[in-house]
């Protein structure tokens, strides 16, 4: 694996395979020089068997900003094979007449806690946040994911084909996130998006200082106690990470005795190397501006600010910097840093030329992110921000894919990409529309009207409501 000393954004470009994982055999060859295995819990996900399918007569949003009326889409060998208005079905290929229905790329939620805060939300299931210290960059969310979370099945019924599962936001550095295909599996490895980059969850503002500074009611608690302490905490960690990185760079260049491993610094150095993408929980505009400066100070880049309730106040600066904002349509007021929420946040960010993403952070919201986008789209229209629906869909698929470094493989209906596709019962900007069929890598993984194609997790077997309409 080559090292990237530049910004993490490099990881999201065409060089992704080289920079962020990719060919496992190459990795094995280079592991001697690397000193240790960067991918010890590799994906075992394989696309399920699928036959070619031609979807016809659909209103297609291609995910890249285009709308095709009476469109056709050919899925073959798990990939998007062709898209257009006049595609002939190859011999023997199943055709789905989608008259009156809409077709889009699968939705990608880049902020989920499915699996780490699963249903039922009993105390034994609280595996989403290692609150034991303000810096826990050493933990990986995949080690807390319970693949039997029934929430995954509700999400697929909402057209979710991939998601990022993040650790919680108590800590300055919460740990690594993991990108999953929304395909049920006995193991989390069986869900991991192949060769996706790792991500790092960080958090601004109230959460870290409340959890540590106030010590859950014990006064005085530890650090950080204030937003000043938050930033000092990040900077101290980055200084340590830079030193750690220098040692490993020297080892890679000169050989000799490998430096001592430090799990926490492995992750932080991975960010400085450009291998790991930073996803930062941050509500307030002024704090995001400080974080952007801090990232320049240490030579990395924030892939996306999450929640970003005040992004509309600095949308121009976010556009200049090149960070995405992962936002709710309308959440507000539950804490002080969420007080200035406005319903037009998402369209205002988009209007400024910055990357806008609709995220859920919720096992309820993830089931209808299309409706959340619709609300934001509509509120934007009414405020004079005219964004076509086909462009607004980038908030749901392509932009989150970019923020996760997987946009070369999914997030739009471009030929060659993974056939992650949803057939909607109608216009997905309507409350009445539902996902009829969901394809992941070309395999039909959800079909609303066929109970045998509705997954039921172990937890729900033998319980009241098993296999019911959900």
């Amino acid at each position, binding site marked *: 694996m080559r090292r990237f000393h530049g910004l993490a954004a490099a990881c999201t470009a065409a060089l992704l395979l080289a920079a962020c994982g990719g060919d496992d055999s190459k990795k094995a060859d280079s592991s001697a020089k690397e000193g240790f295995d960067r991918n010890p819990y590799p994906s075992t996900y394989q696309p399920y068997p699928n036959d070619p399918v031609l979807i016809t007569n659909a209103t297609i949003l291609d995910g890249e900003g285009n709308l095709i009326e009476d469109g056709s889409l050919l899925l073959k060998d798990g990939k998007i094979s062709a898209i257009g208005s006049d595609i002939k079905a190859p011999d023997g290929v199943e055709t789905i007449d989608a008259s009156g229905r809409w077709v889009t790329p699968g939705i990608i939620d880049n902020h989920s806690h499915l699996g780490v805060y699963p249903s*039922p939300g009993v105390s034994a299931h609280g595996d989403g946040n290692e609150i034991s210290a303000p810096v826990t960059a050493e933990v990986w969310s995949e080690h807390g994911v319970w693949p039997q979370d029934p929430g995954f099945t509700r999400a697929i019924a909402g057209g979710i084909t991939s998601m990022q599962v993040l650790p919680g936001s108590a800590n300055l550095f919460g740990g690594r996130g993991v990108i999953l295909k929304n395909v049920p599996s006995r193991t989390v490895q069986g869900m991991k998006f192949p060769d996706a980059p790792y991500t790092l969850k960080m958090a601004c503002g109230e959460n870290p200082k409340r959890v540590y500074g106030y010590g859950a009611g014990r006064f005085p608690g530890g650090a950080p106690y204030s937003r000043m302490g938050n930033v000092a905490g990040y900077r101290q960690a980055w200084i340590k990470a830079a030193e750690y990185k220098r040692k490993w760079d020297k080892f890679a260049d000169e050989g000799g005795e490998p430096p001592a491993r430090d799990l926490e610094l492995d992750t932080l150095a991975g960010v400085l190397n450009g291998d790991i993408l930073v996803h930062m929980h941050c509500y307030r505009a002024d704090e995001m501006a400080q974080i952007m400066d801090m990232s320049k100070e240490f030579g990395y880049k924030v892939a996306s600010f999450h929640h970003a309730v005040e992004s509309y106040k600095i949308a121009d600066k976010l556009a200049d910097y090149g960070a995405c904002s992962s936002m709710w349509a*309308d959440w507000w*007021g539950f804490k002080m840093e969420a007080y200035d929420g406005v319903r037009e946040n998402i369209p205002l960010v988009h209007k400024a030329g910055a990357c806008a993403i609709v995220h859920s952070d919720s096992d309820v919201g993830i089931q209808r992110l299309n409706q959340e986008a619709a609300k934001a789209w*509509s509120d934007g229209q009414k*405020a004079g921000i005219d964004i076509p629906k086909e462009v607004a869909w980038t908030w749901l698929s392509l932009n989150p894919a970019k923020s996760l470094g997987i946009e070369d493989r999914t997030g739009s209906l471009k030929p060659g990409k993974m056939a992650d596709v949803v057939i909607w019962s109608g216009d997905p900007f*309507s409350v009445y529309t539902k996902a009829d069929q969901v394809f992941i890598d070309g395999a039909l993984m959800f079909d609303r009207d066929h109970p045998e194609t509705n997954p039921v997790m172990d937890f729900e077997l033998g319980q009241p*409501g098993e296999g019911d309409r959900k």
Partner: protein
Amino acid sequence: MIRTLFASVAAIGLAAAPALAETIVLRGETVWTGTAQGTIPNGVVVIEDDRIVTVGGENTEVPDGATEISAAWVTPGLIAAFSRTGLVEVSAEDSTNDTMAANSKFSTSLNAADGFNPDATAVDITRIEGFTRLVVAPNTGNTIFAGQGFVADTSGDLDADIDAQAFSFIKLGESGAGLAGGSRQSAMAMLRAALDDARTYPARYLTHNEGAALNRLDALSFSTAARGQQLMVIQASRASDLNAVMDLAEEYPNLDIIIVGADEAWRVADRLAIMDIPVIINAFSNLPSSFEQLAATSENAARLADAGVTFAIANIGDESHQARLAPQLAGNAVANGLSSDDALAALTTAPADIFGLTGFGRLAPGAHADVVAWDGDPLEVVSSPTAVIIAGEAQSLESRQTRLRDRYLSLDESERPRAYSRP
């Protein structure tokens, strides 16, 4: 179920009416009345002072000189059937949060109307999404008894129309078990003891200040609900818990019970219908979020409607700031089998009937003039109100959020910082 405890509101409503008679004519391409008139295409609603005087078709005679409002849809003002709006400004800031009192020595006597702030930003923010009335419940602190909720208009006026002590709110099920000492049976014992205390008030308190469950003031406050003279809203979700509530209702036949939560209500829907016990549900609930919600389904509403249960839909879970999302929940219930009529009723006529709000929740001659004009189907996520009328007065469609939006529609600071912009 029509309740009549709200007679006093009519008098208050009249007292708060504007001094000058005003006549408003609303014309809707679709007028949903919530009455036997059904849905009227190209309908007309005429308001005089604080009352609706006429509801009819396009040829309805209208008075001269009226203010005319045209819209795609006209409906009764929505009623937030279970909210905490106006009790809290910022949830996580205790100094601004009057939803609960974990350290109070009182319980059933906590009167949420004492904490209502018509200036709370959430009131405007909820009103401009089409809500004209809020049913506001306190939350529980250290017992199963949260205290007494109220009904208020969303005008944001300091003299807002408030019906205090409209109901008592009590938690059973998992939450109740935790609050009552650790088990469902301890919660039920606590409730029975409190009913006993309150029903024997004041005799039991002649020589003592403390009863088996309630102190003197709490027993006095709970005595109206315990004697069936005040609504009792009980939170429960699991089918067996709903049966336990219905068993209690049979044991104490004078209690006037409403169940909130009721995620598994569809499993006991026939009994709820026979006993005429209404429920308030969260139509999004479809996850086994706890062991008392294993059979939660987004078809709960549709199945309750089929069984003839009276039900309202509310955004239970974020009741303070996002009560405004109930139409989205109702729209999703339609996507899961509920009729559009029943969904609109679950936001208007049903909560009015459940809480005894006579003359609210419907467009009918003589009804209170809480009316909303919409730019589209109110259940659609892309629709929003173009006019909100409370007691005959057109309300502002501004909120702190719209002011913030308007300030930041432009980020230009070449002349002055944004802080100087107040569009």
